[in-house]
């Protein structure tokens, strides 16, 4: 019987992606480092600077000067950095000439992760043995518990970078659980040093906006400044104490600068809210924007300045009233295919 054998006329395509990311040999990296150093000296000569004391900032400046680029993305512009920063760190060959691997857990696949687990478990066993010894001698000292408030465990990505290996979420959570278990025991000093390697500081997130203290000018009058913005208008306001409610904008009285009642009401709102309408003098400067946005900018600036004159409770009231919040609304961009930002072209049935 005849069997039909299927053949393809096209040659079997080489699967380019199957071998993984490109692997760089050690000689290749060394050659790159030599070329980088030579190039650095050439650059220094070209720019007329001393080749010995040519820093990375100098290189960046030289490249920006010699190869000007109008590309927006900084990462797309030409760079010249040390090869260790460009080529990602890779594992070198894990076995010697006779073929025997260097690490004893090589055949597991994830050698660094499992050796880390092994070491951590060993510390755990040591601590338990130490505890048993103390219990046998009837000396149970309460070791100080380490303060975990300002620290967090390593993230999975940081651990991957440390081990130079891919981890799964399961592996990572197991490792963190083991570390937490180790923490719960009354630890010894050596274990603390080992655990510190896996802790990172968390910067304090609560940042209360510091209210500036009152300043005094030559006449002895208390004053304070505030800055505000709305749309494209930028304003600064200086609020003086012991005043009579006069307000000046760019050297012009508000009655002449803002003919419309609505704008003057906006300016008065912070003072009216705090009940200090006729008590403060204000001198403002404003630029940019239109009539309404300038008014809003000066309102925000004077409210910020008034914080220094007023108790914390009233500051909280002002915040809740929305006097201290920057208004993020700006003009929305017009899109192609539409008449405006939202308005579409007239729809015609036929």
């Amino acid at each position: 019987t005849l069997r039909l054998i299927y053949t393809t006329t096209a040659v079997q395509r080489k699967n380019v992606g199957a071998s993984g990311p490109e692997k760089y040999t050690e000689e290749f990296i060394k050659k790159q480092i030599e070329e980088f150093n030579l190039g650095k000296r050439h650059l220094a000569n070209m720019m007329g600077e001393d080749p010995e004391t040519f820093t990375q900032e100098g290189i960046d400046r030289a490249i920006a000067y010699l190869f000007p680029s109008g590309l927006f993305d900084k990462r797309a512009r030409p760079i010249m950095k040390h090869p260790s920063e460009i080529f990602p760190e890779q594992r070198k060959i894990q076995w010697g000439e006779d073929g025997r691997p260097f690490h004893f857990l090589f055949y597991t696949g994830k050698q660094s992760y499992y050796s880390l687990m092994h070491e951590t478990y060993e510390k755990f066993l040591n601590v338990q043995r130490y505890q048993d010894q103390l219990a046998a001698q009837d000396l149970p000292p309460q070791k100080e518990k380490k303060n975990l408030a300002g620290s967090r465990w390593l993230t999975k990505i940081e651990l991957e970078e440390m081990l130079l290996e891919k981890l799964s979420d399961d592996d990572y959570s197991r490792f963190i659980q083991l570390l937490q278990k180790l923490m719960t025991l009354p630890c010894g000093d050596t274990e603390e040093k080992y655990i510190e390697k896996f802790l990172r500081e968390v910067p304090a997130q609560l940042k209360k906006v510091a209210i500036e203290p009152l300043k005094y000018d030559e006449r002895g009058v208390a004053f304070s400044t505030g800055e505000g913005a709305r749309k494209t208008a930028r304003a600064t306001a200086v609020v003086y104490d012991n005043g009579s409610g006069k307000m000046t904008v760019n050297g012009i009285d508000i009655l002449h600068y803002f003919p419309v009642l609505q704008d003057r009401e906006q300016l008065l709102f912070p003072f009216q809210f705090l009940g200090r309408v006729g008590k403060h003098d204000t001198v403002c400067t404003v630029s940019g924007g239109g009539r309404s946005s300038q008014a809003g900018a000066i309102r925000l600036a004077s409210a910020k300045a008034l914080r220094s004159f007023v108790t914390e409770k009233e500051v909280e009231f002002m915040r809740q009233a929305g006097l201290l919040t920057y208004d993020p609304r700006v003009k929305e961009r017009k899109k192609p295919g539409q008449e405006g930002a939202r308005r579409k072209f007239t729809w015609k049935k036929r």
Partner: protein
Amino acid sequence: DDKLLSEPLNHPDFFNVKELFSLKDLFDARVHLGHKKGCRHRFMEPYIFGCRLDQDIIDLDQTMQHLQLALNFTAHVAYRKGIILFVSRKRQFCHLVESTARECGEYAHTRYWQGGLLTNARVHFGSGVRLPDLLVFLSSLNNIFEPHVAIRDAAKMNIPTVGVVDTNCNPCLITYPIPGNDDSPTAMELYCKLFKMTVIRAKDKRRQNEVVAELR
């Protein structure tokens, strides 16, 4: 060089492994205790001495013989600079097995066995990997009480295996089975100690013979 390799093969017990253990040691380490009658595997019946109150007792005379053959074989492999891989999937003894392997200078795998580690080694490791020349199973079952995948893979890749088989294990594909208990801590510590001593002895012997050969 040829004499270096062929000389140990002329003696039945070149490394004198018989003196490392005795019947009393095995009994004290509770190696003879097996699982209950219901867990008994059919192919383990030749190795079982008897059954007492439903618990199987393993025949220690046969264990002695098998252990002597297995230790002799590991010693020869270590003498010829082979790679030995200790495998065990028992969580209690994972740390013990890994430390034993590290102290011998050999390798261990007591974690989850990924699919093609032996059969698809090129993809996992690289092109020029050297596979282990001997697999030592200190517990031949995995966590689901099924035969460890590595037994089948080693048989596929023509890698000899030494394994401690308990009464619920399948001794078929293992080249040098050692019927014995794999659950007690004392038994496991005894096995680890024996393997470590054999490997270290064999390596020392090799170094001595190399020095002697060089002097000539």
